[in-house]
């Protein structure tokens, strides 16, 4: 057993902290809302700054401009950025898409998209959900029809994060009807602005815009923007969702640790820290956040070692979301009458961060696999309990 970082990882963490000291976060304009996952707001300028350090592509093969650094460097970077509250919103998505392109992307995707990712310019939205395909993703209706060396995509995607400010969509479509329900799907990397694509914002209960819906009206896409073999997009998607649970939530624990520190500081200032019940709640949160972090690191070790993952990322994802909800709720209790004040309001406490976290956290147990779907995954895939019969 070994629960510390290696000397190289420790040195890299120090390098990241040095970067954050030199580059105060105020310098980076924000282009898109912080949805509370722990990766902060969407900031192109910050992505560029990460790119200049070579950190976006640092784990890629040398052949694609990377430095072949071990996976744990990404975790170190995530932890340091999240502890600092940096705006690295699109980073996890960029990494995942790049990994998929490196693994099974076409020559064109590798040539055109990868360098843009490495420069911090290309970011991605996920076109998975549809109005009638949420937890039952395979019910989706968006179709891509082959027409010579192009595909013609027609359909309606929804709940796509930052679709209006990203550069490409990952559009999951049906390319054929097969006997097996899970076959016949294909994924496309579609540049924003392609004719026929209409991206409309959805204002959320926070008052801000994070999600979009995307209408695809005979959008023509060159065949070599397909990601992976035709008809086999579902397995790629499953792999993607599995890794989404991990990469899309890994930074939650350090981000919550940052919020907890702020709450402790606030409680000390107001004297609320003398309330024994509150002390216990805050201390219990600290323990839960530490436990959460270790659940993710255990999954990380399995991923690093190529060991099979059955339930570990699903457990960690649900726990991340529910722990975040609990901390936000605790923060609201602590702030009392000040809790509902928004960022920017007179008298707002902790920059209005808590009320925003409280609202955004409501969506976390829904996005990326609901807590219910994932608990079923844990039970069926992890514990071997019998699956509920599915209606045809």
């Amino acid at each position: 057993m070994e629960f510390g970082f290696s000397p190289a990882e420790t040195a890299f963490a120090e390098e990241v902290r040095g970067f954050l000291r030199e580059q105060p976060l105020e310098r980076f304009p924000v282009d898109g809302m912080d949805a509370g996952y722990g990766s902060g707001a969407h900031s192109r300028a910050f992505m560029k700054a990460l790119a200049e350090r070579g950190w976006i592509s640092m784990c890629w093969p040398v052949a694609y401009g990377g430095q072949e650094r071990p996976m744990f460097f990404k975790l170190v970077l995530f932890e340091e950025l999240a502890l600092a509250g940096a705006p690295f919103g699109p980073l996890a998505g960029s990494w995942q898409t790049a990994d998929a392109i490196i693994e099974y992307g076409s020559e064109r995707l590798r040539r055109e998209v990868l360098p843009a990712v490495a420069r911090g310019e290309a970011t991605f939205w996920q076109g998975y959900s549809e109005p009638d395909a949420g937890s039952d993703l395979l019910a989706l209706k968006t179709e891509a029809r082959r027409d010579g060396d192009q595909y013609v995509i027609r359909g309606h995607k929804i709940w796509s994060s930052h679709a209006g400010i990203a550069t490409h969509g990952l559009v999951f479509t049906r390319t054929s009807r097969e006997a097996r329900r899970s076959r016949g799907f294909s994924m496309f990397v579609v540049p924003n602005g392609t004719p026929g694509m209409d991206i409309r914002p959805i204002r959320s209960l926070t008052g801000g815009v994070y999600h979009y819906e995307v209408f695809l009206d005979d959008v023509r896409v060159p065949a070599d923007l397909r990601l992976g073999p035709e008809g086999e997009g579902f397995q790629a998607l499953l792999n993607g969702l599995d890794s989404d649970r991990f990469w899309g939530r890994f930074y939650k624990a350090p981000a919550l640790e940052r919020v907890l520190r702020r709450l402790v500081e606030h409680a000390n200032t107001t004297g609320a820290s003398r309330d024994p019940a509150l002390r216990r709640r805050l201390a219990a949160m600290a323990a839960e956040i530490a436990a959460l972090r270790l659940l993710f690191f255990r999954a990380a070790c399995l991923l690093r070692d190529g060991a099979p993952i059955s339930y570990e990322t699903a457990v960690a994802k649900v726990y991340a979301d529910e722990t975040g909800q609990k901390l936000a709720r605790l923060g609201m209790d602590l702030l009392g009458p000040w809790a509902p004040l928004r960022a920017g309001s007179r008298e707002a406490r902790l920059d209005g961060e808590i009320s925003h976290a409280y609202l955004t956290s409501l969506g976390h147990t829904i996005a990326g696999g609901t807590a219910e779907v994932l608990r079923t995954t844990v039970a069926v895939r992890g514990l071997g309990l019998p699956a509920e019969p599915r209606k045809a």
Partner: protein
Amino acid sequence: MDFRPSPAQQLLVATARDFLKKHCPPERVQRVALDARGVDDALWQRMAELGWQGLLVPAELGGSEGSLLDVILLVEEMGRAGAPGPFVPSAVVATSVLLACDNADQKKRLLPAMAAGERIVGVALADEASSLEVDARGRLTGRALFVEAAHVADALVVAARAGGETQLLLVPTDRRGIARWPLEVIGPEKLFEVAFDGAAVSAEDRLGSSAGRRGALQAGALARTAEMVGAAQRVLELAVEYAKTRVQGGRPIGGHQAIQHACADLVRDVDASRGLLYAATWRTSEGVPAAADVAMAKAYASEACLTVARRAHQIFGAIGYCEEHPLHLLHKRIHAASLDCGDAALHLEEVAQAIGLR
């Protein structure tokens, strides 16, 4: 970072599991639990032959020279089997106090015998459950509550006020002026009130200042956490097995989401508790500051593992309510372990200070 025990540790765990399966099966655990004395002498001896009680003790004192991580992995297996006996007070807490003390004679006299399974030493170290004082004439007075296995202990390590400071003493249980009164508890552990009525304390009983107490209680807290994690793991396995085989309405109950989701939460609670346990033990072994990590592990597991047991009762339904079913013993042991070596409230206060609450 690496969550896997070393090959030697994996062997220790596999050996322990096989051994406990053979020598400490559920029927035996049941029998010993219902027995008034509540200790299995033959099992205690066999464990000593494997070097378990001497794991923390160096070879020159008759020990098997293991690490704290070894002990934690072993106690996890003991918790899983529901193994009876005063292993944590004697082989972990009292042993740690003796190892840290500066009374070389007592170390030499007791540690080899404890490692060999020939002597048992109990502990009364909790401030909140005892009020012991040594007066100017060297007489020990007061009482200690919730002392485990005092009836089979040859001696007790106690913390007592003496002058302005707290001293650690080693007191033989057969000394005049010491009385042991059994407390009746819901679980299989045997707890006592120990009353000291002017018992004589000599120089050779003194283990020195209370310097070693904190470390010993931390080792004990980790061991109790391991016991909870092991027991909760067993509860999880039993519950999942039951959910797969218990058929109602033509289907296993584990095919229903209500049961599936409960089981998914049990896995989370056990895995999360174990992660904190291993990390805190590792940090303690490395000699880096770990008081807050130990406190988090104990406080977290106390809540999470007890929740595992309580939810398992709902999964098992009526059968889990029976005395002959193993669930209630595992449940009661988790509860008892959550109280020993600092309960959740005490550890949460330690965490509260560590995160900077003033």
